[in-house]
């Protein structure tokens, strides 16, 4: 059932790719479609959310290569994004699904400045695995997807603390800030997006944003944040874990069951290459089977 749907989307994407002068239907996705066992979330017995990219648990998961292609259907776009390939692995413990995403990136971009962007990676799952929407962030109406996005800048917040102007610009001279002289409630208006609790301002709880989308430009951070993760940059490679519960009470989250299949799609942004928003590389749907029982 799902294999047929993947072929259909892949064919759709191929014709779209031809339209835009590309030939980049993800080979791996097609291979995975032919052999859905290729991308499997191995069942493991480690308890709780699996967040550590260096955990030996990943040795039990089969790595799958995902070919990434340029997002060129929506303006603005970068026809030649930096990341061409992603290595993905998945495990689950009956309670949480955890994905390890690895890709080569010669620069660690985790500090945002006016002219500097951050590295990011995202995994997308359909809310309803029986009615898989467009891989391009879902579609209107009703084609809802769950997008869990890890941000290097949020990881920096977690590891080294929130940004300060002196961390960004050591020689900055500050005489006064409104909160030095005003009550907290009065000075809140001077804190911009932080004052209105914009969720992209800080990685307060986790470096992963748990989001919904129903087509282009609809990406919205969910009020209940179920995603978590951790990223480590080492030797020119990002190793990022994104973790989510198999099922929650929310109607806007996928319900995953061991023994069942779902879909995954990925997007990567290389901040050092100026990639942000729709300037990204992404993949088509890739079926994921959740293994049942111990391997």
């Amino acid at each position: 059932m799902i294999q047929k749907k993947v072929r259909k989307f892949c064919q759709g994407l191929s014709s779209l790719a031809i339209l835009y002068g590309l030939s980049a239907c993800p080979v791996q996705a097609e291979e995975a479609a032919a052999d859905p066992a290729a991308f499997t979330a191995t069942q493991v017995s480690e308890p709780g959310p699996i967040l550590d990219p260096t955990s030996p648990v990943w040795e039990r998961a089969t790595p799958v290569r995902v070919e990434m292609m340029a997002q060129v259907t929506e303006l603005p776009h970068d026809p030649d994004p930096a990341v061409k390939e992603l290595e993905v692995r998945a495990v689950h413990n009956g309670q949480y699904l955890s994905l390890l995403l690895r890709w080569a990136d010669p620069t660690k971009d985790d500090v945002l400045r006016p002219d500097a962007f951050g590295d990011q990676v995202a995994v997308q799952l359909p809310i309803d695995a029986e009615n898989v929407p467009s891989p391009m962030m879902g579609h209107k109406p009703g084609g809802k997807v769950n997008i869990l996005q890890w941000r290097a800048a949020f990881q920096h917040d977690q590891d080294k603390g929130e940004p300060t102007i002196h961390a960004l610009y050591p020689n900055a001279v500050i005489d006064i800030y409104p909160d030095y002289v005003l009550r907290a409630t009065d000075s809140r208006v001077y804190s911009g997006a932080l004052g209105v609790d914009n969720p992209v301002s800080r990685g307060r709880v986790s470096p992963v944003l748990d989001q919904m989308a129903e087509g282009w430009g609809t990406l919205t951070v969910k009020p209940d944040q179920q995603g978590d993760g951790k990223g480590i940059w080492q030797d020119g490679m990002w190793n990022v874990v994104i973790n989510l519960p198999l099922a929650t009470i929310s109607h806007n989250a996928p319900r995953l069951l061991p023994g069942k299949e779902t879909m995954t799609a990925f997007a990567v942004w290389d901040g050092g290459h100026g990639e942000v928003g729709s300037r990204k590389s992404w993949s088509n749907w890739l079926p994921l089977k959740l293994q049942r029982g111990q391997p």
Partner: protein
Amino acid sequence: MAKVYNWQLGREMDYFYEVVRPKRQFAMIFDTNKCIGCQTCTVACKTTWTAGRGQEYMLWNNVETKPYGYYPLGWDVNILDKLGVQDMTSPVYQGKTLFDAAPDGERVLGYLPDERDYAYPNIGEDDATGLMSQGAFYAAPHMQWMYYLPRICNHCTYAACLGSCPRQSIYKRPEDGIVLLDQDRCRGYRECVKACPYKKVFFNPITRVSEKCIGCYPAVENNRQTQCTITCIGKIRMQGFITTPDKAREDSPMDYIIHIAKVAKPLYPQFGLEPNTYYIPPVHVPPKYLYQMFGWGVEEAINKYRTALEDKKLLGALLLFGASLDIVHSFKVEGNYSIGYDEKGSEIVRVPLREPTHVRIAHDQQHQVYRTNIT
């Protein structure tokens, strides 16, 4: 892309959205001949709106010395250079707008300033176009020149920031045409920073989203002119509302100056954004330079401005600059007075067209001294 009419270009052009003109349009007029570059407006804006963390470098209002001052560095020459030489030889603009010139994969032609471009807010300050040779003396026209260009967000009719945002985080208010950036919806992509040719959208590295001039909307909603306007010690600004030329109202001081007397001109109209801040061009600057900056009709504007004494209505409108904290919606000239009214038609200000002159006798009999100031 939709076809929209840009009256400043005298033609239709492509824009990302259909035109929906606001009920009234926020606008500002600057008299560059009166600006002394004191930066009181800049400080007023800074202390009112951008005193917070991550806003240290932001100047929603700034005053730069032209031709060599820029904030951020080279903002106008950079985008002019990218746009290339365009045909502006008639009132109907024949050249490309920034939307026409958008490269493949982009919504608009733009560029993201380098971080260091923001490091020199006073660069070029008071620099004239060249050195004076030994023994030179003043002659008109000036051999060397400079002037001050005060700038805020233009609250454009066809805002490039708004058109470039893939998330529609920027919107133009239907009630007053002020362009605002939703602090809750923005995700810091900086497409708007790239797209705005005036570089009046700034990225806040602490809150990680972009911010821009809000047109002092809390003041405007209460019929009060913006902070930069009411604090201007040289009374060089007027803030109010304008209409399109076909609906120009003779009793509106903004409409009279912009549409009827045609004394104030938009800033770089060739970019195609239909900006809504207008400049009375400096009278001492070579028209060739002004022509590039303010578009068609600068020489006529200067001639009209020089002869403003002959047009009592124009004089009356110009004298309302800095005369009232409240927004002047309409005005009339009666006898020796220019009278400004609020939206309901109540008089809010009365300014004499000519101040009475008192002459004191040059020699003070009582103290047996000569006076140095006798008028």
